[in-house]
């Protein structure tokens, strides 16, 4: 079964895998630190935020849409999960944060599905409004009151692996299973290809659209909680530009804006690729602006390589 899957890898996929392998090879030769346990663990921890965001973004992009509001959701959920600890036990605070993400997602999905509005515009508006709202909630950074919040989640380890990385590792197969083995997942996939044909086949398109955006909001909130727990602080300014990194990971992994293409494996590959590039550039002390520049180039190369020949 694995072989038949491997055989279906396209040229760009193989090209990217080879490029990443070369990068890893070069980095491990040129730097003593790259392959150290500390560095690898650090990479695995850094990529969790974008990883969770990208999985959610994949769902939305598969339906032919996009979600620009994930950045503020990350920030707001971090603020809520830490700030509310002054009034309730931290699991409850986390629950509120997750509920917020879910609510934002449902709102996005509802506006898009019910009123036929363009996802770009709706989520752009949500992004702006939410950013303002979270500053209303707290202008200043919030600190978690309960040390368990950090210890269990962000700072915790199970064996050599950090808890956040493990969480991400567990969510990947869940999303994969959903997309490939459930009725709802297949409907999400198909509706991005031709939503009218799917509607006429009796599928409740509206419900699935809202569901995709709700899942994206939820995963973004989850990422925000994990981030705040890892850093030990939640700042209202967090999350700016996160949506672009998520979209980049999806696109590098073969996702097609407009629906109809994209796989979990591809997204994970894209997340990994971006994290590796970040890490290597850090190890060699390259300025972060170059990282920005390089990321943009990588996205261009990715879409060029995958374009359908006219």
């Amino acid at each position: 079964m694995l072989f038949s899957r491997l055989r279906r890898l396209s040229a760009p996929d193989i090209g990217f895998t080879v490029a990443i392998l070369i990068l890893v090879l070069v980095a491990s030769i040129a730097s003593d630190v790259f392959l150290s346990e500390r560095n690898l663990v650090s990479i695995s921890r850094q990529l969790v935020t974008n990883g969770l965001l990208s999985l959610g973004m994949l769902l939305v992009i598969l339906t032919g849409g996009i979600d620009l509001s994930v950045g503020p959701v990350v920030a707001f959920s971090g603020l809520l999960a830490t700030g509310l600890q002054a009034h309730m036990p931290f699991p409850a605070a986390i629950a509120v944060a997750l509920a917020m993400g879910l609510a934002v997602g449902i709102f996005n999905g509802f506006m898009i599905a019910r009123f036929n509005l363009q996802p770009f515009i709706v989520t752009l508006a949500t992004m702006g409004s939410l950013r303002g709202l979270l500053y209303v909630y707290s202008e200043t950074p919030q600190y978690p009151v309960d040390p368990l919040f950090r210890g269990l989640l962000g700072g915790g380890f199970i064996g050599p692996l950090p808890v956040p990385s493990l969480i991400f590792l567990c969510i990947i197969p869940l999303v994969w299973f959903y997309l490939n083995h459930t009725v709802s997942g297949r409907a999400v996939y198909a509706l991005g290809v031709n939503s009218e044909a799917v509607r006429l086949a009796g599928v409740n398109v509206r419900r699935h659209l809202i569901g995709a955006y709700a899942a994206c909001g939820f995963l973004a909130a989850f990422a925000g909680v994990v981030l705040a727990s890892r850093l030990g602080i939640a700042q209202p300014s967090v999350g700016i530009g996160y949506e672009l990194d998520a979209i980049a990971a999806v696109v590098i992994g073969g996702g097609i804006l407009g629906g109809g293409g994209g796989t979990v494996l591809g997204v994970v590959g894209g997340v990994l690729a971006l994290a590796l590039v970040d890490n290597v550039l850090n190890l060699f002390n390259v300025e972060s602006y170059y990282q920005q520049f390089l990321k943009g180039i990588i996205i261009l190369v990715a879409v060029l390589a995958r374009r359908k020949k006219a």
Partner: protein
Amino acid sequence: MLNVVHVSKSFDGTAALRDVSVRAEAGQVLAICGENGAGKTTLMKILSGAIKPDEGEILLNDVNVAVGNPRRAIELGIHTVHQELSLLPHLSVAENILLGKWLHRKTNWIVDWKATEQRAAEVIRDFGFEGVDVSSRVSKLSISKQQLVEIAKALVGRPKILILDEPSAVLSVHETQKLFRKIRELSASGTLVVYISHRLDEIFDISDNVFVLKDGAGVLFSATASVDRDTVIKAMVGRSLDAIYPVRQPRMGEVALDIRHLSRRPAFDDISFTIRAGEIVGMFGLVGSGRTEVARAIFGAEPASTGEILVSDEKVLIATPADAIASGIAFVTEDRKRDGLALDCSVVENGGLAAMERFAAYGVLNLARRSSVVGTKLDELQVRPRGLSRPVRQLSGGNQQKVVLAKWMLVEDTRVFIFDEPTRGVDIATKVQIYRILENLAKAGQAILLISSEMPEVLGLCDRLIIMRAGRIAVVLDRDDFSMETVFAHAAGIVADRTMA
């Protein structure tokens, strides 16, 4: 002047045009007619440069113009009015008419709006129409006025060849007469007018020569004056009916579908009819008669505003396609590429799309069972080759249609099947197979509504025929009263309506 030489064109394995040749001279009006799917629009698209032929040439004064370049075609003086309106709805009438040819002042890059609007107004007046405000947005105009704007657009400059594809479909009689006056003017001044239509009245009114296409081949070319209506009809639709259509020995059960006074103006009004289990009822009508709208209303794709639908004697409320499917109604749509298939999804994905609950438990899909069930059905329908995970886009038109049929046949507990142009874009061999499938469904007790513009299809397969015109039922004919001429006459409104239930 115009010489079409041995032109052929296929799409995804289905031949749309086969070795077509015809000539026409400047100053003539050539009518091209044929049923739906005969190849008229394909030929027109090649003439206008929208697509390239696979074989053959089109010579304009001995220069090959079939180069697949619309700009080149326009430069050569070939102006086209397509069947689907190609206006830009948010722009003004003037801007649409002079699209690409905005008038400018001394500097080449500043548009002179006043001059543009004046010129556009001139073109409209010249055409014989008043009362169209050239600065108003096209989207505000009625569909027939939009069609006039589309035609006006093609009249700008002096076209050497003017191609009109079903221009009168949305025009009133009065407007059509004005159009004809303009056509006569143009042909008198040397323009070759190619008039594509299946409205025989108009063809006999306006054309000098008539060319009939059938199944992609030219079957008749004659001076209009030397041929009569019957000959043209027979050339368009005549085919040996016996070999193609299964012999109907219907055993009909109870009334399965009862439609009462269904209306959604202006698309259709006061539609009432019944279909019994095992019966095949046809619905025939020209473009704009409202047949697809009725079907979409019954299926819940675009519900009616008033009226009742009863399935097996139970009143059902159908607001969405899911409601219709739950009531036992299946709908094979007119345009599989637009709303029948998700082209980039696999064959098995499309085949199982309407019946996913059959292969799922608690929301989780049993992929093996889906492949097995869908695969078996596709084998039954003889879809070849078997690749279930291929994107359905790669299949031929006929096989694609079979995937759509499989999708609906896998829905459990259906009682009514609506087919809208089920053999459009399908080769003749697959057509025969699809007719057998239809017959088998009827034998199994399904009530079938067959919407079709192909006369032989409805005459060969149906037990009764509803003829729609302008959104209403013109007449319902029993099999004993079937004849091509009667059907056409009612569809075109040549005969007074009689309603026989």
